[in-house]
């Protein structure tokens, strides 16, 4: 008989190594410990105790490799050791990476031999459930489904057997005789949650064979007695060696958490046995996807919503239509006070669907038409605004009448934040029309005109609707003009032109230029005079700089458009020139407030009172003295020190000027420098 060198025994001889081994016993020593256990006759002997200690420690620290697990299962199964030792050994069955299927199969067969007590059998079954995600070939485990099923009869093992069956069950396993046996068992032991859980799964697969109504929010299975945390701990230690672990699985029924209309849903899983490995496989599966029976279950789950876009079954949309009609129109009380949670839930789901489909749902569109007439601007604001921003391309009169006008009304009586969110929403709407709806409309129209079924549009609508006749470009222009109009209203409501508002207004105009450069969509919407005016005389340096940048970008856009034929630009060019002249006059040329023929801003004569109270008003907004730039100019002059005798040198002295412009650029005001470099001849 081999003598087992326990860590303690070896410590006297080789102190250095023993310290290592105490921290992490080597695999060899574990093998030796196993040999000791295999040949042990007495449980209470010291070597056995030491070996068990060693194995336990190794398992807890880094898990055990597959072959050791198999040997351990054999040792437990032979049951030569006492029950307490076996329990400890079972607790040590923690995998290093995976559990070989043979270990699990051996466990089940040892359980059947009769050596092991019922309590140990239960413990073993619980172990299998706990390590289920780490078993390597589950197919083999599935082939002994029938044998595991027999353990339902045993009261103590039954909860864990049920749990294991729940994990293993596939549609073909659900057979009448099994259902009958579980039901008979229920009549003996009562409606135990684990049996209910198993039957619920059976019902999901075969609603035509069994019906069950689980209690609300019932937890089906018992906790795994600390196994999960043990495995997690070991896995976290071996994580650096192995791939990340399998995500946790929730066993309670997901649909019970949030309930839209009714609690029960049937669905038919279609995925293959081993999951999906390649993208092609996924693609072919999506084509063959069998949609669930209940449309509600499709709408409720983000994963199943993909079916809406990929499935060719048009009946889904019809069912969705009727469901939404009832949800949105037939139950208006959901949108009344006191039913907020439900209304919020419905709207949030619809917002999600709209965003996923990237297009508005017709029923939601009609709902919004009704709802916006009575909307107070507060309830479900973010959802409503998101839904508005996905409004489909329709004649502009319609949009104006039913969406923009109610929103405009609200804008006039609301806070600055709300005004900004409205602007943000409309900017999104405009962008959405230009980027998504316009190409979609053109393609749909082409398809309708050519009447060729094979013509597959790149951006197609999920909802098969007739294409209306409308001038899509004109609609977009009108929308942009209306948003410009709203911008001016917002500025009038906030005479101080707060930076937050200016930021959103400028964002809209920058977006129109972005459309040209990124999506090749021309949307000429020059800012209205009040917008330019407010930015130019603003106290905020950001507004001034961004406006200059915007004008510079517009110039680039119009110049590149000029090279194309057929675009009517003269009006825009005149307007833009006026702005350029006014801005240059104000910030550089010392000619502000002098009405010229091209000027847009200074056509209105300044009241005499102002021109008398301020000396030389045209100087006030020169770049040097501009209220927005005072601090920066002062800093610049301080830094320059003696090199600049008089501030006016910034304009007259070339070297100082370029230093000043560079200074501005380095302080994130490249908008101003770009503008000057583009439009002013720096001699």
């Amino acid at each position, binding site marked *: 008989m081999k003598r087992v060198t326990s860590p303690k025994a070896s410590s006297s001889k080789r102190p250095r190594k023993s310290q290592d081994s105490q921290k992490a016993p080597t695999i060899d020593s574990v093998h030796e410990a196993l040999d000791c256990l295999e040949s042990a006759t007495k449980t209470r002997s010291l070597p056995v105790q030491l070996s068990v200690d060693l194995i336990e420690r190794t398992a807890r620290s880094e898990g055990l490799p597959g072959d050791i697990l198999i040997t351990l299962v054999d040792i437990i199964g032979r049951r030569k050791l006492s029950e307490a030792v076996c329990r400890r050994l079972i607790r040590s069955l923690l995998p290093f990476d995976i559990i070989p299927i043979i270990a699990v199969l051996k466990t089940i067969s040892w359980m059947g031999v009769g050596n092991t007590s019922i309590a140990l059998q239960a413990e073993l079954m619980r172990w299998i459930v706990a390590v289920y995600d780490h078993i390597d070939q589950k197919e083999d485990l599935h082939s002994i489904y029938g044998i595991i099923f027999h353990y339902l009869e045993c009261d103590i093992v039954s909860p864990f057997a049920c749990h294991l069956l729940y994990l293993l069950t596939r549609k073909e396993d659900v057979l009448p005789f099994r259902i009958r046996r579980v039901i008979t068992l229920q009549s003996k032991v009562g409606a135990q949650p684990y049996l209910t859980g198993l039957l619920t799964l059976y019902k999901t697969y075969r609603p035509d064979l*069994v019906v*069950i109504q689980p209690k609300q929010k019932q937890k089906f299975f018992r906790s795994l007695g600390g196994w999960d945390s043990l495995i997690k701990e070991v896995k976290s230690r071996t994580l650096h060696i192995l791939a990340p672990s399998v995500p946790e699985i929730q066993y309670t029924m997901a649909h019970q958490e949030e309930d839209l209309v009714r609690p029960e849903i049937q669905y038919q899983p279609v995925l293959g046995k081993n999951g999906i490995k390649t993208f092609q496989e996924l693609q072919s599966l999506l084509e063959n996807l069998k949609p669930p029976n209940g449309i509600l279950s499709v709408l409720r789950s983000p994963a199943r919503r993909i079916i809406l876009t990929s499935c060719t079954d048009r*009946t889904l*949309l019809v069912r969705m239509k009727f469901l939404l009609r009832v949800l949105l129109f037939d139950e208006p009380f959901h949108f009344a006070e006191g039913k907020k949670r439900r209304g919020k839930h419905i709207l949030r789901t619809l917002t999600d669907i709209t965003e996923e489909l990237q297009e508005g749902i017709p029923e939601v569109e009609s709902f919004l*038409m009704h709802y916006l007439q009575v909307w107070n601007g507060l309830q479900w604001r973010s959802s409503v605004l998101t839904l508005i921003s996905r409004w489909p391309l329709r004649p502009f009169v319609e949009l104006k009448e*039913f969406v923009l006008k109610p929103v405009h009304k609200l804008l006039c009586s609301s806070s600055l934040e709300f005004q900004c969110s409205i602007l943000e929403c409309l900017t999104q709407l405009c962008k959405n029309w230009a980027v998504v709806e316009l190409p979609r409309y053109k393609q749909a129209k082409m398809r309708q005109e050519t009447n060729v079924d094979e013509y597959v549009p790149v951006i197609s609508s999920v909802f098969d609707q007739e294409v209306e006749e409308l001038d899509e470009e004109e609609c977009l222009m009108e929308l942009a003009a209306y948003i410009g109009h709203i911008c001016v209203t917002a500025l009038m409501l906030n005479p101080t032109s707060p930076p937050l508002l200016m930021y959103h207004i400028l964002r809209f105009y920058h977006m129109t230029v972005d459309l040209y450069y990124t999506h090749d969509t021309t949307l000429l919407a020059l800012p209205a005079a009040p917008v330019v005016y407010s930015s130019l005389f603003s106290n905020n340096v950001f507004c001034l700089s961004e406006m200059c940048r915007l004008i510079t970008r517009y110039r680039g856009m119009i110049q590149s458009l000029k090279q194309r034929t057929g675009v009517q630009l003269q009006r825009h060019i005149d307007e833009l020139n006026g702005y350029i002249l006014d801005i240059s006059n104000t910030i550089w040329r010392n000619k502000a407030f002098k009405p010229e023929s091209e000027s847009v801003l200074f056509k209105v004569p300044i009241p005499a009172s102002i021109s008398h109270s301020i000396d030389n008003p045209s100087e006030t907004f020169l770049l040097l003295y501009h209220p927005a730039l005072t601090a920066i100019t002062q800093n610049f002059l301080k830094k320059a020190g003696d090199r600049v005798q008089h501030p006016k040198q910034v304009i007259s002295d070339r070297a100082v000027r370029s230093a000043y412009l560079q200074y501005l650029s380095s302080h994130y005001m490249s908008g101003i420098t770009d503008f000057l470099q583009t439009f002013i001849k720096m001699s």
Partner: protein
Amino acid sequence: MKQRNFDSTPQVRSEFLPVSSRARSYRHTPYSKTPRVRNLTGRAEETIESTEQAASNLKGLVNKTWRIYKVSPLFQFDYSPSSLRLYSRLLKAQLEAKETQGYGVMVGSSNSIKTCFSVYEGLTSLKGDSEAVEIKIQVASKTGGEKEVFCGILCCVEGSEDALDLLADSKSFTQLPVLLTKGQVSFTYKVLDFIQTKFDCVATPLVFTPLELGWMISMWAGILNEERPNRSVQLVYSVPLKQLQSITYNIKQESAHKIWNCIHDQSSDEMNVEEVTAFLGSLERHFHTIFGIDLAHLCLKEIATPPAAAHTSGKLKIFSTAMIHKILRHITCLSQEALQRS
């Protein structure tokens, strides 16, 4: 006296729209409209020969109070006897499972509840209509016999085919927009739940607005019921007062008949909104002259006419077998309009 607008909701909006968009379907307006004209005779192409079964079925419909639900098209409903048997087995199992929460119930196992899905003859008068379906639930009573606790009839009488623009293949859908129910409320809810889950449809109560009740009373008040000559025409108005909760207004069958004949053009198959306004206006004017109460400002909540009575909450009682088709045709029409409204 103030004239009520029976033409439903405001129409001001249309004048803002250009002609092109006004011409389009009302999907694009935020207001739905009740039709201005309704057909009185229906479009029965042929009289379906009535069997004995049909006659007894129709007799079973009268003199009972039905609660009405509107049902969106049923998905994958099958009329074959085997499917109907399966539906009744499933319904039975579901009822049992709801009773014994947490216990599984094998489909087809015998128990105390009896359920039956069957085709209900005698209600269909048009070829395009789906056959009516009857759902019955019986439980064993304490005295030993069987007691009917629920009876529901899914039907469609002269439903308009284009009313529900079924874009997809219409073979998967069966249109049975009206569900008449009678019996214990708990069973009604369970059956509704079953229909909704099994056939993926939506079933919600059909309520009659005062406007719709106004149309109904004009439509039916002028019809004499030979089976029940003593039945008068009745209008019940709700009053927002604690002491006086409602006003009941009774008119003799013959008087109502005379008034309607004066207003309605007998040669026409249709009735229109002006006639409805005139009929109700004349009744209300009479009441105003005598009692000084302007009924036009109160809510009409219940009506009773010789052939049928209806309540605003969606209850209906039919008194005349001869009128069943006409009445259910109107209810089908209302249900389809309500489902289409959006």
